[in-house]
């Protein structure tokens, strides 16, 4: 029973990582009504790029973060141009299929560059820890929580206060009307993809540092986890993604601690199906149902 607080803390930290990926997912869906399957592999490529860059800088953690975000954003721009823009006016699941193609392509590119074997994620993080009661809190965990909250606040500020944010919200409401009002929707989708993919890259570096391990196959799973986090919180809601990611992390922490780690993923899928069946809008979503 003493372990439960530690489990909860670990779940919380991993959950913030999920929330960062899920947030990008949620934004892309909000603006383009497309499920971006390739998002998970953007996470993977961002994390690997960060690792490679850090290697040349003596394992500097912050270099890894910046590289991960920049590479993620660039990938997002490429995906927007090649994969999403051509299918914007097509039937509902065209975007999902094209992005699945991109998922494969990115996965193979990752495999060819970095190889199939798992690698240890060698970046230097200050090895400081604090004892609070029975719980040990590491510097990395505090760092992730702070970054998570800061990113959420920054994003909230962008979406609600800046002009590009207003354009994003207008396009999310209706692309056609936004275009009629003079919004450059291509610019909006580029911006959305770049921001969300940069977040995926950031989450990739953070979570891989936290786990200490990375392999090419993590992308698919990360994408699915992000999707579940976004659905639990309510697709299209920034705050919802944060809560959804944290809830998912907590549930997984408890499930792998008390049920069986083999069933951990099955439980998160089960929760996904349950949420979609019972409350498809998620906890904080509003308009996601009309599209179903």
């Amino acid at each position, binding site marked *: 029973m003493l372990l439960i607080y530690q489990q909860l803390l670990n779940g919380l930290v991993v959950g913030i990582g999920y929330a960062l990926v899920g947030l990008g997912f949620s934004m892309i869906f909000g603006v383009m009504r*497309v*499920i971006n399957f390739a998002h998970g592999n953007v996470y993977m490529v961002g994390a690997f790029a960060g690792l490679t860059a850090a290697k040349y800088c003596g394992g500097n953690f912050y270099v890894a973060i910046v590289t991960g975000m920049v590479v993620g954003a660039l990938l997002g721009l490429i995906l927007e141009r*090649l*994969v999403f823009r*051509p*299918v914007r006016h*097509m*039937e*509902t*699941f*065209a*975007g*999902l*299929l*094209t992005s*699945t*193609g*991109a*998922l*494969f*392509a990115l*996965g*193979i*590119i990752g*495999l*060819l560059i970095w190889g199939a074997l798992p690698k240890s994620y060698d970046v230097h993080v200050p090895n400081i820890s604090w004892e609070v009661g029975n719980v040990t809190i590491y510097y990395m965990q505090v760092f992730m929580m702070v970054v998570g909250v800061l990113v959420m606040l920054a994003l909230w500020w962008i979406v609600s206060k800046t002009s590009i944010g207003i354009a994003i919200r207008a396009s999310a409401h209706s692309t056609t009307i936004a275009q009629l009002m003079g919004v450059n929707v291509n610019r909006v989708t580029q911006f959305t993809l770049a921001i969300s993919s940069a977040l995926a890259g950031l989450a990739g570096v953070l979570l891989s540092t936290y786990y200490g391990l990375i392999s090419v196959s993590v992308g*698919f799973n990360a994408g*699915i986890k992000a*999707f579940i986090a976004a*659905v639990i919180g309510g697709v299209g809601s920034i705050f919802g993604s944060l809560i959804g990611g944290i809830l998912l992390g907590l549930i997984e922490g408890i499930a792998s601690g008390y049920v*069986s780690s*083999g*069933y951990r*993923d*099955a439980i998160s*899928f*089960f929760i*996904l*199906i349950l949420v*979609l*069946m019972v409350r*498809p809008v998620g906890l904080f979503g509003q308009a996601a149902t009309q*599209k*179903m």
Partner: protein
Amino acid sequence: MRLLSSIKITPWLGKHSWLLLILWLILPILLRNRSYWMHILIMLAVYVLLTQSLNLVLGLAGQLQLGHAACFGIGAYVAGLLMVDRGFSFWSTLPLAFLGAALVGILMGLPSLRVGGDYLGVVTLGFGEIVRLLLTNLMSITRGPMGLLNIPGPSIGGFVFTSKIPYFYLATALALFTWFVMQRIMNSKVGLQLMAVRTDEQCAQVLGVNKGFVKLFAFCVSAAFAGLGGAFYASYFSFISPDSFLFIDSLIVLLMVIVGGKGNLIGCAIGACILGIAPELFRFLGDYRMLIYGLLLTTMVIYKPVGIWGLDKRKFNTIRKMG
């Protein structure tokens, strides 16, 4: 395709499609039982079966189904476990695999009553993953990731299937049976109702289509036939493990349907043949093959969403004169 139609070979083949069937049936003789090519032909027949059954959900009902491999896997495991643990014969497990997969299909289809579009794709994907994780973790029943070994082959009377030739004809028979049933469903009332639901759900409901029933019907029948294929697969390979039924396998079948032409049974068979043979021809490319799959999927959806032989080539149902 333009070249083919310019020399008028496709209309001619359309009228004499039985020639293709005969060619297919004598292929084992032409190939003189070369084991490698026989194996590819058998897998092609299985792929044709899978695309035909997936097409019912994806092409006709317009519901995104990303867990088809799970239905296939359930059929394989039902058949394999009954044969190994309970000593059933192959023929008696066929209907049971059919029913088992049909049940899973109904479960998989239930979310389609509430969610649609992309969401349904992710739900079925999740469902497929749950099935795979259960197969992996229920060690006491399924033997877990080590898989199920020594599944016996079918036999008729005293004749036990050992060489690839009887397997070839069995697979062909199953695929043709599936094709026939799907053809009948497409031209039936339910088939028309499914197409109405795909085009416009609300409009279909207004016209009196029971949306929930036809969707569940599509999921159920599609899964059941995949289960039939799974039972064949189990006894043909005599070994199955949860790793034989991954998300990627669902995606490959989906890709076959999309490349071939969703909604058109001939198109599905063409897609299955092209994408079934291509990996063998491009074996030297190794890992790049998946890259090609990915690029192919993306370019097909962008530039030719109807597929090579899609719905536009289909002869629509004509009203026959009564009596």
